[in-house]
């Protein structure tokens, strides 16, 4: 970016609400997974004679969004008709809000950038349109278009920012923070790929230091957050070049072509639609009582930015962990339930426990949920107090990493108690060494090259072999015999060339036990492969 010029960006984001029914009729709004045209009625199909009725839940959700973005809420608001003709628009007009939006004059502070406060001009209510699927013609035949009316009438909120964004980083932060807020206040999924969150941008450039806005270009058709930043980068460069070449930027609407990586002119200012807005006569103005607004405000959850700060302060979590945890309201709630379930602890201890809990939630839990598509951690089978048990025992080193993951996996699968799983799977202490025997045998058999490497003088190979035993047995670092064995190979690794892994074990054992005879017997006990553990020489060991 040329420092001679400043970029000015404003975003218009359409957020689909996840209400039970559509904006103006009682059809289900859960169109995403439904067969085409199964969520339709005379109203959303705009059959002659039908009338809209406002979904009061959608109004409440709009107020929620507005309050979460520090907006004022209109005491009286109204709907307007936006008239234009396109086959995805059933009535020939969209019911929207023109000059009196339900929420206005708010702001969003960008996370991690306390100096940048982005103004929110307005939040208004409207309805989605039908989905058209264009089927191109083949062999010279004419193409055709399929129509799915399920989406027509699904509540849409348009969040319009002021032209306060200056960089694509800010744009990215704004979008992801807005998505997070939408999910936090539980009004929508805010998913760009599935179309429940759509972003158009107005971009202009001006000489640095100028306060006048340049001719703005509206960019449409950006379906991923990456597309937004790429399109904006392209557009900023294009406009900068234009200006540097002494040309004027033309006010127009351009579409982003993600494959080619360019914006393409769609509509000039002269061709702009005249939407002929006028007040929707089928819907009386809405009066929004102060008590409703107060009620909604009181029910608003603590928003992610504040919650992140609190997580850092209360539990000493690193900012990264706190931000990740609080990016999902349910995960943050779950986290709080885990840490609150363990009762009083010393501050340092609690902080360590919280950090460990954060690790498990952001790590294993997120991984498992991602694998099976679970989005709400409370929908998993692991209850918070149960996770607290696992985290506690892991923290006390009663379980090693692999074992704890194993326990977690079982808890995730079956919903069983952590203690029960540890008990049943014998993951706590492998006191019965007979379990190790066949495993060690297998490891030796399965890793001849590692055995050869070690015997050839490659010290670290033993680490691999013992690791294999431990992994296969989920054996614990706390197992004294293994632990000592483990330590032993670091000090006594030399001079073992020419010996089998069995010898190595015996050597290790004698190092641990201090006695060759005992070492053989211990090795036999540990590995229970007596018949094969035959020391090839005795004199090497003393």
């Amino acid at each position, binding site marked *: 970016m040329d420092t001679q010029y400043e970029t000015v960006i404003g975003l218009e984001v359409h957020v689909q609400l996840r209400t039970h029914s559509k904006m103006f009729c009682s059809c289900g709004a859960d169109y995403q997974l439904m067969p085409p045209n199964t969520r339709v009625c005379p109203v959303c199909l705009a059959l*002659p004679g039908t009338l809209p009725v406002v979904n009061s839940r959608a109004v409440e959700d709009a107020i929620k969004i507005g309050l979460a973005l520090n907006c004022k809420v209109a005491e009286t608001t109204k709907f307007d008709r936006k008239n234009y*003709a396109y086959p995805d628009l059933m*009535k020939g007009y969209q019911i929207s809000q023109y000059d009196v939006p339900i929420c206005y004059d708010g702001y969003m502070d960008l996370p991690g950038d306390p100096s940048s406060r982005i103004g929110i001009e307005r939040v208004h209510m409207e309805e989605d349109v039908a989905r058209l699927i264009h089927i191109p013609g083949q062999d010279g035949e004419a193409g055709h278009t399929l129509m799915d009316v399920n989406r027509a009438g699904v509540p849409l909120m348009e969040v319009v920012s002021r032209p306060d964004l200056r960089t694509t980083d800010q744009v990215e932060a704004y979008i992801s923070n807005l998505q997070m807020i939408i999910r936090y206040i539980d009004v929508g999924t805010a998913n760009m790929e599935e179309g429940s969150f759509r972003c158009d941008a107005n971009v202009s450039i001006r000489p640095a230091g100028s306060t006048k806005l340049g001719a703005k270009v509206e960019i449409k058709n950006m379906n991923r957050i990456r597309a937004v930043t790429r399109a904006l980068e392209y557009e900023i460069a294009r406009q900068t070049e234009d200006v540097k070449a002494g040309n004027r930027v033309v006010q127009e609407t351009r579409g982003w072509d993600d494959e080619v990586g360019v914006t393409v002119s769609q509509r000039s200012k002269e061709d702009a639609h005249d939407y002929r*807005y006028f007040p929707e*006569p089928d*819907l009386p103005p809405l009066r929004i009582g102060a008590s409703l607004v107060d009620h909604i405000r009181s029910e608003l959850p603590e928003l992610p930015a504040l919650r992140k700060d609190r997580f850092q302060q209360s539990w000493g979590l690193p900012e990264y962990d706190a931000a990740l945890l609080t990016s999902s309201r349910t995960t943050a709630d779950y986290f709080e339930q885990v840490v609150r379930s363990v009762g009083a602890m010393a501050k340092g201890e609690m902080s360590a426990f919280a950090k460990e809990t954060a690790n498990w939630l952001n790590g294993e839990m997120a991984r498992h949920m991602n694998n099976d598509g679970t989005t709400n951690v409370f929908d998993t089978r692991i209850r918070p107090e149960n996770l607290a048990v696992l985290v506690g025992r892991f923290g006390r080193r009663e379980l090693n990493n692999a074992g704890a993951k194993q326990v977690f996996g079982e808890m995730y699968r079956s919903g069983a108690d952590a203690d029960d799983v540890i008990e049943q799977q014998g993951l706590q202490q492998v006191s019965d060494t007979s379990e190790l025997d066949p495993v060690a045998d297998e490891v030796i058999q399965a890793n001849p090259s590692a055995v050869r490497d070690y015997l050839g003088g490659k010290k670290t190979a033993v680490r691999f072999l013992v690791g294999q035993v431990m992994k296969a047995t989920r054996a614990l670092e706390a197992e004294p015999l293994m632990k000592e064995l483990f330590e032993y190979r670091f000090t006594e690794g030399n001079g073992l060339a020419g010996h089998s892994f069995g010898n190595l074990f015996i050597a290790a054992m004698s190092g641990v036990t201090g006695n060759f005879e005992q070492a053989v017997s211990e090795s036999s006990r540990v590995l229970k492969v007596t018949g094969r553990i035959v020391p090839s020489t005795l004199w090497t060991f003393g």
Partner: protein
Amino acid sequence: MAPGAWTVTGIRAAVAGGDLSAREVCAHYLDRIAATDGRLHAFTTVLREAALARADEVDARPLLGVPIAVKDVICTRGVPTTAGSRILAGYRPPYDATVVSRLLDAGAVIVGKTNCDEFAMGSSTEHSAYGPTRNPWALDRIPGGSSGGAAAAVAAGQAPASIGTDTGGSIRQPAALCGVVGLKPTYGRVSRYGLLAFASSLDQIGPLTWTVADAAAVLQVLAGPDPRDATASTEPPPDLSRLFPGNVRGTRIGVPRVALADGVDPEVLDAFGAALAMLSDRGAEVCDVDLPHMQYAVPVYYLVAPAEASSNLARYDGVRYGHRAKLDGAAAGVSEMYARTRSEGFGAEVKRRIMLGTYALSAGYYDAYYVHAQRVRSLIRNDFDRAFAAVDAVAMPTTPTPAFRIGERIDDPLAMYLGDVFTVSANLTGLPAISLPAGLTQARLPIGFQLVGRPFDEATLLRIGDALERDAPWSDERPPAFA
């Protein structure tokens, strides 16, 4: 009729005629069973309570067996609903309008759909794609419009009542020109759900009947809250059956004399004066009222109504229902399909109003036309509110002239529009209004007498109307050709 001699057809006639209630009939038989079955033992079960409850239910149906005609802009499930337009030729709605459901629940029988100006745009029913309706009093004349079919059907005895719609006078004007009672209820009194919208903020459904009491009986069924119409009043209507016989002693009726000074046919003025005199004789107090902004009502109406219509009619695009132009070749795009479909589907008057309305809403003109018209609309409402501080109803002729000849004004839309001078105010203000027969011209053409009332005070209009009807020598007049 002696109970012992009751027959199925006799009972049916007695109940239908109101000589006996279904409950009385039922109670008679239940008593007889009680008195005799001890000896006879013909019954194993007697459903005394259930039978009486069912009889009550049947009795409670206020329009049981009453045939009613419905204007063709109101949806009737499975029955063609064309709005008098080619664009909806053969269109059968999959649902009943709220008023139709209510009529059916009340036991009414819908005998048919009546002709109208296309999408209710017109004052003569000449603008129907299916041909004009004739006035039963003079077949070479228009019946008025847009509910011309509904008015003519009642006047000619084809149905005792019909359901019309009134956006700028479309119930009252044809009622006046056909010599029947036509009531436009207060905006919001009757649900518009299922009414093919012309101008949403003005449209209202109401009855056309031969008598005022019948209008009250039908309105009682039509009226009431409807969750499907956000503009419908949440207040249930009062009991309208207790108004009769109408007493007007002390009722104050205001007359906007200034508005009657010009352009009103002398015979219409005479009839208007005679009706007022009759009410005055009955004890009503007649005085002058000033409605200074009513002179702007017609221009305001012809901005607001077409503006809303231009948007309301956008859905008739050939994509989902109704007429779609046959296009040749694959090259034709969706714009061409729209243009051809709408060119073929809509008639001249509808196109004229779509263009007027589109213009009035366009960037650069919106403030000068639509917004300005809405402001004057508020001033007109203020005039009426002020008038109602002093009077209970405002009286005017319904139309400045009696029915004109078919074709007489078809090429002069402005003359046609100016005929709405006395009716459009009630729509712009949302106020209830009724047109009552007020006698005939020398050429035996009906004249209408109109009353406008306070919001939701249809009762006063019906009460005054009933008083006039009882006194009027013309009340039994029927169109000679259909007597």
